[in-house]
């Protein structure tokens, strides 16, 4: 079975750690980035099946990174993670494939990952351009 590769982009190290533990338990291969620059670098180097992206990164906007990803890797699905539920107020957020409000219960996140990956597999491979 091929493991899906997920890139977690969040400026909080403890959240990156939590996602890594929990999602690895679910059988995913996890890479993490603390900021947009690291994320872009990782995307250039490796292939990923999904990105979990925090809307609010330290001193930068996750939505700007989302726009860049969509522009350059338009088939790479992105799930936005946010601590605040009014993310839909920003039109940029509509580009994402899924939204999850951060919660200690990661079940909703896991369900969303499964849904988005299933949708992606029906769409075919992504194109690496970054």
């Amino acid at each position, binding site marked *: 079975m091929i493991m899906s590769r997920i890139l977690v982009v969040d400026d909080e190290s403890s959240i990156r750690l939590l996602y890594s533990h929990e999602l690895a338990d679910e059988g995913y291969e996890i890479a993490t980035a603390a900021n947009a620059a690291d994320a872009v670098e990782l995307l250039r180097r490796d292939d990923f099946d999904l990105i979990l992206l925090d809307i609010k990164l330290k001193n930068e906007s996750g939505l700007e990174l989302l726009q860049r990803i969509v522009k350059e890797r338009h088939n790479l699905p992105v799930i936005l993670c946010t*601590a605040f539920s009014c993310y839909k107020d920003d039109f940029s957020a509509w580009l994402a494939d899924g939204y999850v409000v951060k919660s200690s219960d990661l079940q909703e996140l896991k369900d969303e990952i499964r849904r988005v990956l299933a949708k992606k597999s029906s769409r075919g491979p992504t194109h690496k351009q970054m």
Partner: protein
Amino acid sequence: MVWKCCWTTEAVREDECPSIEADEADLYVSLQRRFVAKCIECPRFGEDLDRLSESGHPSAPVLRLLIDEIQRQKTLMNSMAAFLDNMNMEARFLHEIGVVLQTSLGLDEVLSVALTAFTAGKGFGMNRAFLLLADKERRFLRGTLGVGPRDYQEAWEIWDEVSRKDFSLKEMARHFYDMKLSAEKDKFHDILERLTVSLADQSHILNRALLERRPILVEDAPRNPDVDPLLVSILGVDTFLILPLISRNRRIGVILADNFITHRQITPQDVKSMETLTFPVAFAIERAALYERLHEDLRKLTRANTKLLEQQELIVRMEKLALLGKITSSISHSIRNPLMVIGGFARSLLKDIPSDDPKRESLQTIVREARLLEDALDEALAYADSALPALDRWDVNQLVGNVFREVVKNVAGDRMSCILDLSPDLPTIYTDYRQIAYCIKKLLRFNLEMMGTAGELYMGTRLDGECILIEIRFCPEHVHGGDEPVFPGLGEEDGTKGMELSICRVILENYCKSFTVEEYGSNGRRYTLRLPLKKEGT
């Protein structure tokens, strides 16, 4: 020649002139004044004059001529003095009326003074007076007040009362205003009701008096072609006086005065005097009407001001709440990440711990408490979120359905029957999803809390003319005596709940065409919100 009269004696004694009264003692010592005042009318002097004429004295004819002239002058002077007395009395009366009118601001008070002046014996002594006033739109003259007796019997009773009480004019007007005004309005109701004349009918004699700005004395009314027969039949008299009331070129009304009981003739002098009174009366009526309007405007202004102050307070409160919301959202945001990590790791650890491990309970507690805190944060964020408007076109059914499901899942008791009745194919409306959802959520939560665990909740939507109607009904199951739930209205509650409901009320006032709260069934309540289909201003 020895004279019988004392007309040649400078000073006389008391017994020498029988014509001098007790209070005219000075005439005993003044021949000149005594001669003019008494002698020329004294029979003794007449006899002396006859004797003088008979004697052939050359001055006798001249003297008689002089005496005649003196008498004529004296009569003239007496008549002038009487006229001056009358004028003086009238001037004093007009002054008194003027003072009373000046100090009267209420319309009824002014009317009482005016009509009393026309009808009182100490005034112009007319038997009856009717006042017709121009309405606010200046389209009709309408009978407003009538004063006087309806028949002889009542006339005698009134005059008897007046003579017994001996009121001054001012007292009489006050007495009329305090005791008789409303009764008098009722008494002449039938006449006043029929005394309506269009101001556009320029041929009507009442309008003629107004246009010509002069009183008209109508005599032999039934045969007068200028007089409306209806007016004659209403008044029931042949002679009456029409007095126009005009102030600063504005037609205020007319007064009709007649001597319905005594049939006393109305003289030109009466007309002139009464005309003089119409000027201050018209002015006072106009001033009273303006004063009344001023008061009404002031009342409106005060109400508007109060409302404005309330709205300002509410805006300030809402601004504070919005600020509080922003702070809450910022704090919540800062708390959520660490909370998620704590709860998340606790869940993660819990998965690998055997069921008999004593640490399991501690981890479960961490998970539970973290979840509770997250829920509290969600609530706080939702509250902060709702304070800012987010207008767009929304599907009301989606809004109502989402709120219904969320609240029912979390709040409704086990034995609660929850009915969602959404009318299909409703058009979208332009509104603020978050604020309307917030209000409905609050209403549902508060009412469900009141209802307890059993009862029926109905929530439905339907098209209602140019609106979409949202109906929410709460029917609690039978509650034991004395425990009836007190459902919240909007703004009836105190404390935090009251504040939240007040905010709901303001939001609903902003977005709903109407919303009502009413009792439903024996102890339930129904809320009805009408959201307009069309965006306001389009």
